[in-house]
């Protein structure tokens, strides 16, 4: 599993469990890594479609 895949999984787990500290950390990582920001944004968009 790639680093990006791991972070995607971590992001979805954090979103599911209301783990705000982990989400904050992931968004901070994304600030330095545009491709991570893009990927997290896509995951967030999927979550937005579900609500």
């Amino acid at each position, binding site marked *: 599993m790639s680093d990006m895949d791991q972070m995607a999984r971590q992001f979805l787990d954090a979103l*599911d469990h*209301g783990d705000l500290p982990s989400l904050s950390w992931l*968004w901070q990582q994304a600030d330095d890594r545009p491709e991570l920001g893009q990927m997290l944004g896509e995951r*967030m968009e999927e979550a*937005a479609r579900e*609500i």
Partner: protein
Amino acid sequence: MPASVPITSAPYPPAGPSALRTAIERDYRLLERGVRVLVVRMAGPLRDHEIDGIVHETINETWIRAVRNEHRFDPARPALPWMLAIATNVLLERRRATYRDRRQVPQTDLTDEMLLENMLSTQDSKIDSTSNQHAVQAVLAELPTETRKLLEARFSDGLDGPALAARLGISHGAARVRLCRALQQFRERWQARKGIPHV
């Protein structure tokens, strides 16, 4: 809120000192969608207007903090992850503040939901022990097993939103409905025990 608006944002071209404000204005709706997801996933069963209120307060505070830290914004990078990091921290602080406030409210002034959470969710609830704690346990014992397990999953185990739905093996929406009904059952028995007229 159209579902077709993507949350992802493209990098911005180099710009002048107002690059952040331009980025925020450009990404406002994307930020709003992202914050709404966070609020819905974190806050549990809330009415739509309550969700709207938290979303708008969070975005306003995010805007203020972003502008205050404008010197740290790199216009060569997308602004959305940076703003969502701020928004997430705003929500985290809000949750902590809510928890602190709840701990300071006299037990007699708590709503039934707050009372349940206060009695069941804290590790040191024995230190706060009052007759209410025994009363809560007594009311829970009167409830049907399924209802009691649902309330314990929500308030004792701290499960919320999708996690609660997964525990129950039902959809998020169905979990919210069951939780509302369980709270209603608790409320009726609680009010009867306390001699509070049913509203």
